[in-house]
Every structure is written in C-alpha cells, then in structure tokens.
C-alpha cells in the first residue's frame, strides 16, 4: 500500500494510504481526544472532540481527524487555540446534559469543573450519545438490537424490542462503552426480563 508522509504537530509521520489522521497520530504516539472513535468501526465523526486544524495549500481548515484521510504533505496541528476552545465548549455542553459521561476524564484534563450551561438532566446521566454501542451492535455483531431513537435533543439510545432477545447472553456493547454509561440499558434489559447481569461493568456500578 502506498506510503503517505505528513506532519503532525511539527513531527514527520509516516502512514498508509486510506488511513485517517487519528490513526496516523495514534501510530506515531500522538493522542487526539475522542469519544466516538473505535478502530474496529467505520469513522463516525459525531463527538467532534477529535477536531484538528489542517493546513493544505496554505489554507487552514478544521476537520474531524477520525474521518479525514491522510494526504501527502498535510500539516496537522492537534492543539491550536481554536481546536482547544472547541473541545472546552464540547466539555461544557456535555457536562450539562450527561454529567457522568465519558467526557469527564477530558474535563479533568482541561481543568473544567463546571459548566456555564444549565444542567439538563440528572447528575448521574451517563450517555454522551457517542454511538459506539449502536454501531458495534449494528456493524460488527449485525444484530441491530441497540439503536438511536428520537431526533435532535430527544436523541437517546434504546434497545429494539424483538431484536434484543440475544442481548442478555451477548452484552459485548458493555465493553465498548466506557464504564458506567450503559446503566439505563441495564435497566431496560431487566425490563425485558433478562436474567440478572453478571457483567463486570454491571458489578462496578
């Protein structure tokens, strides 16, 4: 496969054609924050934490590094002021809607203790709507048992009645999700009369 060379934060990085910026960065030991990226899954581009600034033909542009394919001569900066401001705003917005979501690690890293926005849900609300569980179940397990319902701010993760028969024995989405977030799916699973859960994630809750 064709080799591509690009620059990330001033460092020369080698990558293969077809890789995304985030993959090339990972390979070079550069971490780009993200919530919805998983190498096993198709790029999704939803959480926007992985946005980076690229420079191409002298023009700067903000892109989601989990989706943007590497190109020869591309200059990527993962920590410009613009990018950092976007991440800070994302953290504040998520703190207001899913205070116990997986962004809390990032909140610590960025030193954000509270949001300027009014709390929209209970302090335990865990889901950042990263879609990892939905995509894992749909694309890898091909079960289509976990799905999104609702549009805009009404978007939530739900189990598809009927399709979720095998959920109690599978539970692989629990491992995809960062600890604690699947709590309401657990409730739902119990509602549809599944046997008690033995997952380590459940025990941790």
């Amino acid at each position, binding site marked *: 496969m064709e080799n591509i060379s690009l620059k990330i934060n001033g460092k020369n990085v080698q990558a293969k054609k077809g890789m995304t910026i985030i993959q090339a960065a990972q390979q070079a030991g550069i971490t780009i924050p993200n919530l919805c990226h998983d190498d096993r899954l198709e790029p999704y*581009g939803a959480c926007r934490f992985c*946005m980076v600034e690229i420079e191409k033909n002298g023009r700067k542009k903000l892109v989601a590094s989990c989706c943007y*394919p590497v190109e020869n001569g591309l200059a990527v900066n993962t920590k410009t002021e613009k990018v950092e401001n976007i991440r800070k*705003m994302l953290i504040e917005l998520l703190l207001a*809607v899913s205070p116990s979501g997986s962004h809390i690690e990032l909140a610590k890293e960025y030193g954000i203790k509270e949001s300027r926005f009014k709390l929209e849900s209970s302090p335990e609300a865990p889901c950042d709507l990263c879609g990892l569980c939905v995509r894992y179940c749909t694309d890898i397990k091909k079960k289509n048992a976990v799905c999104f319902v609702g*549009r805009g701010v009404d978007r939530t993760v739900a189990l598809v009645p009927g399709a979720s028969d095998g959920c109690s024995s599978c539970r692989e989405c629990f491992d995809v999700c960062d600890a604690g977030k699947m709590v309401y799916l657990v409730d739902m699973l119990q509602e549809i009369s599944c046997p008690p859960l033995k997952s380590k994630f459940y025990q941790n809750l």
Partner: protein
Amino acid sequence: MRKLQSTSDMEKLRKELLRKQDSSKSCISICSGTGCHAYGSEKVVSAFENELKKQKLEGKVEIKRTGCHGFCEKGPIVVIYPEEICYLQVKIEDVKEIVSRTIKAGRIIDRLLYTDLKTGKVVHESEIPFYKNQTRLIFGNNRKIESKSIEDYIALDGYNALGKALSEMTPKKVLDEIKKANLRGRGGGGFPAGRKWESVCNAPGEPKYVIVNCDEGDPGAYMDRSLMEGNPHSVIEGLIIGAYAIGSHKGYIYVRQEYPLAVENTELAIKQAEEYGLLGKNILNSGFDFTIKIHRGAGAFVSGESSALMSAIEGKVGEPRPKYIHTSEKGLWDKPTCLNNVETWANVPFIINKGADWFKTFGTENSKGTKIFSLVGNVNNTGLVEVPMGITLREIIYNIGGGIPNGKKFKAVQNGGPSGGCIPETQLDLPVDFDELNKVGSMMGSGGMIVMDEDTCMVDIARYFVKFLSQESCGKCTPCREGLRHMLRILDNIADGKAAEEDIKRLEELSEFVKEASLCALGQTAPNPVLSTLKYFRDEYDAHLQGECPVKVCKELIQYYIDPEKCKGCGLCLNKCPTGAISGEKKGVHTIDVGKCIKCGACFEVCNFDAVSKISGKERNLKELTYN
C-alpha cells in the same frame, strides 16, 4: 403509445401532436399547483366541465390542469387561450359567466382581471407586472402544459435535448457544454454542476448513480415542489442527459412523502417516458440504458443534506456523514454518485438545446442563468418568481413582489431557508447571486425569500429559526444538538427579558462554535439567522435586555393598556376578554387587570376607538404607575 426508435421518430411524433393542436380552439387552463389546489381549483375545474356540458360546448373547448403558475397570492388562476385572458381568484360562482361571456361571446369580465394601481386592468397574463418583470426560462412551461401529459411536454420541444445529446453529442461533449455554461447547483451550495459531473465520471467504481434531490423542507419554500408537480418531465429529461454524460444507468428521485402530487405526477411521468422508450433499454436506439426509481422521503429536514439523503435511500436513518471523501467518489452504497437539486436538473435540457453561450447571457460573472425564488411573507404578491441572477433584492421585492402590504415599511428579508441570514434595508440593492449573498452573511440556499415588515421582531425571528433547526437537527453531532439547544434557551431568555449582556456574548460564542464544529451544513449554517440579526439589528437585542420589545411582539415584554382618554366604555373588550381581566362600568373607562391578562390580544383586535394599545419597556412602567 408507441416506442420511439430515433430522434426523427420523435420529431415525427412532435409534428403529429402539433398538427392535432388547433390553435384557434379555446382552451381553459386552470392552475392545479398546490397553492391553487388549496384555494379549491379542482372544484373550479369540475364547475367548468359541467358548465361546458350545459352550454353545449363539450369537446369544442379544451380544459387543461396545469402546474403552478407562480402567482399563488391570487389563485385559483384561470387563463383562457388563445387570447391569454387571465382571470384571478376565480370562484365556482364565476364559472357560468366566464363560459357564457368570455368563451361564447368573447367579452372580458373586468372584475376578474388583475388591477394595476398605476395602469388599471390588465387582460393578459404575461402583462401583469408580477410576470412581466420575471425571466421564466425554467418555470415558464409550467403554465403551458398539462402536468400529467407527456405529449404536452413533447409538443413544446420536450425531450428534444435528450434526442440531441444521444444522437449528436458524445458524453464528453455534453459534460463540456454543462461545464462551459457554468451551471451551479441550485440546491444551496452553488457548486459547479459540470465539475461535480466530471468527478463522478472520472471516479473509479461501478455502477454510478444519479439522484434528484426533491427533499425541499425549508419553511415557506415550494419551488422544487411546484416544478416536480407541474413539469416533471423537464427534471427527468435533465436527469437522463446527466446520466448519459456521467455514464450512469440508474437514477433516483428523492421526493418528500409530504408532496403527494409531486410523487403522483413523477410516478406517472416515469411510466409515460418508459412507454415512449425514453427510459429503459436502448433509449432512442442509442445503446444507452437508464432507469429511474422514486424514493419517498420520510419527512426529515436533514435528509435534504446529500449524504443523509443517500443513507435514507440505502434504507438507513437519514443522518449525514462527513464528506471528506466526496459523494462523487463514494456516495450511494459507496459508489460514485451525482446528486443535484430539482432545479439544477431542470436547467440541463435548456443548456443542451440552446447551448452554453445562450445560457451565459443570463446572470452575473460567476452565477449564470436564472433562479427560482419563493417570495413569501409580508409582500403583496406572494408566489414563485424566476429571475436572472444578479437582479437586486429591491427589484424582486418591489417590482415583482409589489412591495409591502398595508403601507408598512420594509424591515428585512431572509434568504436561503431557515439557515439563511436576515438582510436589512441598507443591503437591498445587493445583486442576488451565490457569492454576493454569502458576503453579507446570508446565502442563496434553495431560494426561499421571506420578506418581513416593520412589525417583525428580529429576536423573535432568530428564535423561530433556531427553534426550527434545533428540532430538525438529527442529533448525531454534539455541537449541533447541544449547541442549538442552548442557543435557543438564550434566545428564549432574551425574548422573555430575562437575559443580560453576557448572555449575548455567550450566544455569539455558541454561534461561532456551532458554525465551526458541526458535522454537516445544517449545523454549520444554523447560526446564520442569529449572527445576521445580531449584526444588523443589535439595537433590538439591546432593547430586549432593557425589558423592551421595540415592535411589541415578545409576549413577556408587553402589556395591553386602555387609554382612558380614548375609551368610550362600550364594553366590547370586556365581553371579548376570555379571562375576565377587563373591568369597567358601561360608558365609564375600562381597565385591564395585568395579573389576569393572558395577552391574547382579543381586546386590541375588537376596540373600535384605538383605545387599546400594546406597551413595552419604560412606557410600561409609567403606565403601571398611573394604574395604581
């Protein structure tokens, strides 16, 4: 119906059809577009059918149900040919008189004509200023053909461009002609169609797909709908030509389920084209195969975004995906796909028929041709207008739209759908083209044009559009979902007088963030109504911070007040008030109990003495004092 074997075969058919048309025979053409349909045009059609029978004119006079004429303000529209006498707002009661006086005796009924304030009555449709000041290249045939008749379309040179492309031009030549014409996408982005076609053509991968985007969802916009309903063959012809140029053999027309007539007419049009051999295998003996399938949209605004639309066709939820790899390379089912808007496709037959050089005589340096706008809101002549690019907003609103009703003053015009910007009076002489509108913080969009008069509160407008967009956001990406939620919250607070200066700063900060960080164009453009109103109408925001809605729209900031000097004590408002908030003796001055008032405005509406008024801000405090 016979399968056409060649272009000369089609030419023969056209001559036959024209021979059958007797130009001296009277024809009553009745607009059956959505607007007129809502006014009851179908009942008018039946009334004409009955009346012709009664007056023994059956078979001697033709009746045509045409597509939308555009002058929707004055529907139902009836035009009588060959004289082109145009009657507006025709009711069932008028039908008998039209048949006996106009059809039989050739006399004109003045009362049903358009009245021009300067020149008086106007007899012919094309002389009405609303039409006279337009350039109706694409939309013009709508009123001449029966929307369900392929023969009408063929008689008017329909499918001639297809014949020409297939028999005289190579795909490359077709592509070059579109590139030379510099046709830009009419759906909003304004991306050059020729360049898009070319990249699809050159992209590796088979099969290639072509798609018509008729998922028009902007509030108040209906030009794609009217074109698809009124003249579906023009879009289909453009699509086939495009497919030929690109090398695609399968096309989709994505139509909203909420447009039942568009679905019906498009389905019928596809069937007719198949029967004539204009779709299917070996079209006109050229060796080129092409089929079209209709996909009905399930009603999400975001599905108008190209990648979301393709997901929907694939049977998935209509959600956008990042397009760093363009849909022209990896689109529908990851195959090279060319998606264009209804109006873009409808332009193609004209360019092929008359040539790129002809097309380039319309428009500006970088925006060629015409554009159809749906002119709505506080404007006298509501309807669909087609104008050459480069015309000024003022010309559209005043010369074609007839200005602002009820002697009110113009305040702003919002272009390009819910995520367009609001342009103030100082920018009215701006030429309308893709680039100029972007410069002032608005956009061409798909061509919605909402005119607002002086009674419009710009904070309220920004709030309305942000609310619409937050409801229509798919919720996939965080900035659009959460950012719009809080933008709306701040706008609500401003409209309720509960916001401070720092809230406006936060609103600006959120606007920039949503614009920069969102995944698709819905989020990236959603802050436009906020940013443009903040730019041009900042004083109104400031007034709201001070507790005053200058045009007295925002309910929380107004109060109804009865002027004791003007009140005659008639008791009309007292009787109308649904909450018993008004008290007063007969012939004595009435007052409103602010605590009980729900601000419904019933008293304001009924008062015959202008005694009831809306007050806001400081004025409100003063009046409250005098009450106590």
